[in-house]
């Protein structure tokens, strides 16, 4: 559990492999992006959101679409390991297994973060707000950090169940709700001109989430993965 050089090297190896797979297929990030946009349009139709309302809604929609799209990325990240028992290959490797958690969580964070960074300017086009602002980017990355850490933890839980293909969202969304609420509230605050200090309580909640879930990964990942 000590962060030795080889521990960090293992994390980097796992992350690198995920980036390689993503680069090979160039599929995860584009799929998430298209999906996020689809959701935005779907909601505008199905929920008949009125235009004046939409300005206030932008933060909520951003996070709902990010949350749904990230689930795709999380699912892909874990089904990659499940196919042909590739996960066994990682379990065999000589390192504390929490390194697998950090490697996968980092990968998930990078991909969903990329999606978020592309979504912001797109949202700025669709909604009467410039969303490409540093404080919002910061809030987004913090929120995604907490969300993907929890998601990585839960995806490892769900992989062992018989219903693994569908379990993740059911486990993830209710548990992630506090994170999502904090992210939405902080984003809304920032969008309405508040400073980061004004929404600090939400930011602290996000930081606490990152801390807690990563501690959870460090402590429990070995336990979760053992058969």
């Amino acid at each position, binding site marked *: 559990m000590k962060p030795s050089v080889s521990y960090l090297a293992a994390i980097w*190896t796992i992350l690198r492999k995920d980036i390689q797979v993503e680069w090979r*297929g160039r599929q995860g990030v584009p799929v998430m992006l298209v999906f996020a946009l689809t959701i935005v349009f779907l909601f505008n139709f199905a929920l008949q959101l009125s235009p004046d309302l939409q300005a206030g809604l932008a933060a909520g929609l951003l996070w709902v679409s990010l949350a749904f799209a990230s689930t795709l990325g999380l699912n892909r990240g874990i089904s990659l390991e499940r*196919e042909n028992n590739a996960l066994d290959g990682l379990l065999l*490797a*000589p390192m504390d297994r929490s390194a697998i958690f950090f490697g996968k969580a980092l990968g998930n964070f990078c991909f969903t973060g990329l999606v978020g960074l592309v979504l912001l300017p797109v949202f700025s086009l669709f909604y009467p707000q410039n969303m490409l602002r540093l404080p919002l980017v910061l809030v987004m990355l913090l929120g995604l950090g907490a969300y993907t850490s929890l998601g990585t933890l839960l995806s490892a839980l769900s992989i062992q169940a018989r219903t693994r293909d569908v379990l993740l969202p059911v486990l993830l969304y209710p548990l992630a709700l506090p994170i999502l609420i904090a992210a939405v509230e902080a984003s809304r605050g920032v969008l309405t001109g508040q400073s980061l200090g004004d929404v600090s309580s939400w930011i602290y909640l996000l930081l606490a989430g990152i801390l807690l879930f990563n501690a959870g990964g460090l402590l429990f990942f070995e336990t979760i993965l*053992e058969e």
Partner: protein
Amino acid sequence: MSTQTSTLLSQIEMRDLVKRFHHQPVLNHLSLRINDGDLCVLVGDNGAGKTTLLRILAGLVRPNHGIVTIGGADPISDPQVRRFIGYVGHQPMFYQDLTALENLVHYARLYQVEAVQHTVIQAIQSVGLTPYQDQPVRTLSRGMQQRLSLARAALHQPSILLLDEPYTGLDQDAAAFLDDTLQGLHTPGRTILLAAHRPQRLLTIASHVAWLKDGVIHRHLPVDRLGEDPELGRYLQEVG
């Protein structure tokens, strides 16, 4: 790496292993000790528990009860012990969209092998997959994936090899290569445990035979004393 591979780290000891699935014991207080330098062939009927046993040794499955030590160390509490283990299972364990080369490079990095690129290219060549090394694993035939698995398991020069029916799907070239490799690896400082259904071809190079039956090691004999045990002899005869 060779300096680390002490004699100790190639001795496997299992004591009183119990593994149950749904209350039904598959391994039932099994004990077995495999000494340094042994090449032990594990035989047993379908469902005897060979795979379960090998997966426990590889640290992939946790027994309900009992102790496994690898060279005196507990592989569960000390992950570094896994560095000395190479495992080939029923499934190939590859990322289907990465090429053969990339997969092996990834494993080499996980094990912190030195001179990654060189080692990997060597390994691929040894199993005759050089022409296919840049194809995604998805497109390799079953036998080719099995060859690649063998290359993977030996990449970090483990002192303990756990092979679960390694001849599956191999053609004659590859099977001959495996024979040679096993013979070459069968030296002091190395231990090989190999599950097989048709061990006949192995009896010339193996040093021991272990027979898994009813959840315990029913017999464990050196090959040159097989004649003393008519029951095991008969079993091996049938198995062919």
